[in-house]
């Protein structure tokens, strides 16, 4: 805290441009966040490490949703289906087909991408609440299928999903600390990739579609193919979260496709502000910590989840990050 204050003072004395100040502050913030994340297992309790793992997995999920909701403006209530497909993909690959993990993961992601392209082609023909309902319908269909199919072991779900074999490095991913660093690495890669996509020429088309789909078409963009593209990227990102989630718990079951979970993802995105880069991270952290705090305080999780959700939608539509920013701006 005191460190930040001194930085503010020095920059004020240096009298450099506001943009450079922002860049430097961002650099310091990101740098300390990364350092803090790297040092976390050595600084705190094992439970904090476990919570951090849950936050990071949620953050990847939220990043995927954010590309759709925040960047492209398509509100989906069905992204849980891709989280689930990721988990089931490696579950079926490793435990049913007996494939090694390094083969199951890319195969799963390719499969999810293909499936998402097909689903996206149908869903993106609609917009607004209709899009919300059709994505919900698709996810309920997969949810129902996962409960009914023998291949997915019904409502029991699949257990024995392997974590990566890090034997070559002399490490065991069953150890919470090793697993933590594995998750940290994947999270940084995934969040950076989604951020890069949002900042790319392709990403700026998505933003144009969010602002005005008709204008984007008039500009000469084949809107539907960009929307399908966004849908696929979002799906793959959510599937990555699903793979990590299933490795974290060593199994996968139909509940990861429930529409409550999809709703939780959307909530994280709204909490974290749909436009900020760190939004999904912040949203995931606030959400996971609030949920944990609530579960210690009360058993009525659902009541508070619902109220929390309503408050966030009604009053924090631009997210906690934006609220913070404006609070700082209003300071003299």
């Amino acid at each position: 805290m005191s460190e930040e204050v001194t930085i503010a003072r020095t920059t004020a004395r240096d009298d450099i441009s506001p943009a450079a100040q922002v860049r430097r502050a961002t650099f310091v913030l990101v740098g300390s966040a990364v350092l803090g994340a790297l040092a976390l297992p050595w600084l705190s309790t094992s439970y904090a490490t476990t919570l951090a793992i849950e936050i990071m997995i949620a953050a990847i999920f939220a990043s995927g949703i954010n590309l759709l909701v925040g960047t492209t403006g398509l509100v989906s209530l069905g992204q849980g289906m891709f989280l689930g497909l990721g988990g089931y993909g490696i579950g079926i690959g490793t435990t049913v087909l007996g494939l090694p993990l390094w083969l199951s993961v890319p195969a799963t992601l390719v499969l999810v991408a293909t499936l998402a392209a097909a689903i996206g082609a149908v869903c993106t023909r609609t917009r607004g609440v209709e899009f919300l309902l059709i994505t919900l319908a698709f996810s309920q269909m997969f949810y129902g299928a996962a409960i009914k199919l023998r291949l997915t072991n019904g409502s029991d779900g699949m257990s024995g999903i392997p974590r990566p074999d890090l034997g070559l490095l002399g490490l065991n991913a069953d150890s919470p600390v090793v697993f933590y660093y594995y998750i940290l690495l994947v999270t940084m890669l995934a969040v950076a990739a989604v951020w890069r996509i949002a900042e790319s020429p392709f990403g700026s088309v998505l933003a144009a579609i969010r602002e005005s789909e008709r204008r984007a078409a008039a500009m000469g963009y084949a809107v539907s193919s960009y929307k399908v593209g966004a849908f696929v990227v979002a799906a793959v990102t959510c599937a990555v979260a699903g793979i990590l989630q299933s490795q974290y718990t060593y199994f996968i079951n139909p509940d990861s496709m429930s529409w409550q979970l999809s709703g939780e993802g959307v909530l994280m995105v709204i909490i974290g502000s749909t436009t900020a880069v760190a939004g999904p991270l912040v949203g995931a952290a606030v959400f996971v910590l609030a949920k944990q705090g609530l579960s210690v305080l009360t058993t009525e999780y659902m009541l508070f989840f619902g109220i929390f959700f309503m408050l966030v939608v009604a009053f924090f539509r631009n997210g906690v990050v934006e609220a913070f920013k404006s609070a700082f701006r209003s300071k003299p």
Partner: protein
Amino acid sequence: MSTLEVRSLHKAFGGLDVISNLNLTVPPGQRRAVIGPNGAGKTTFLNLITGWLTPTSGAVLIDGQAVATHPEEVTHAGIARSFQRNLLLEDLTVVENLRVACQAFHPCRRVFWRSKREFGDLFEQARQAAEWMHLTDILEVPVTHLSYGQKRQLEVALALCAKPKILLMDEPAAGTSPQERARLIDLINRLPKDLTILLVEHDMDVVFATCDIITVLSYGKVLATGTRRDIQEDPAVIEAYLGRRHARG
């Protein structure tokens, strides 16, 4: 220099003919206005040309080539348009609006693995489009903060980013103040002379100040085509449209 040609265009909604057997040719470099009373089918006509609506029959041609039927393909074929109601990327800055518009014609438009900042030529193109419409001073301002007149200018500038052969404008002066209107007229007149322009407009001052030839539509049919004088003297036009207004004025 391109010719826009519309051949026996026909559009019916249900049993109602909104455009019937419409023929129109705009020669290269001409500034053509399309006017007509409310419900004459002007906006429908523009939507048919630009692929927002599919004609029941008939064809739209540029230099004799048939134009495709999706809006984005029409833009790539060389026809760009502005809208009657502002259709802008409200949360983005002016320069980002223009940059994205220019990017549609850049090979990088599907690139997702590199930052958009790496393609500096697009910023240059955006600045050029801004210059045409006098927007260079407000490049970094988010569109939400612009005045209405500035938004109307941006509306046209976005269409110019497509480097069109033919520019269609749907009531560019709609809702503007007299000062804003004068500014717009000035800017339109300064557009490159080789650009073929088709202007749909309600405001006769704008029409007379910017266009050489005027086509009058009524109930989906061409009533008359000609210079200002031809139109003003055409009894059918006076009957249908001008007469009422000028008689009163």
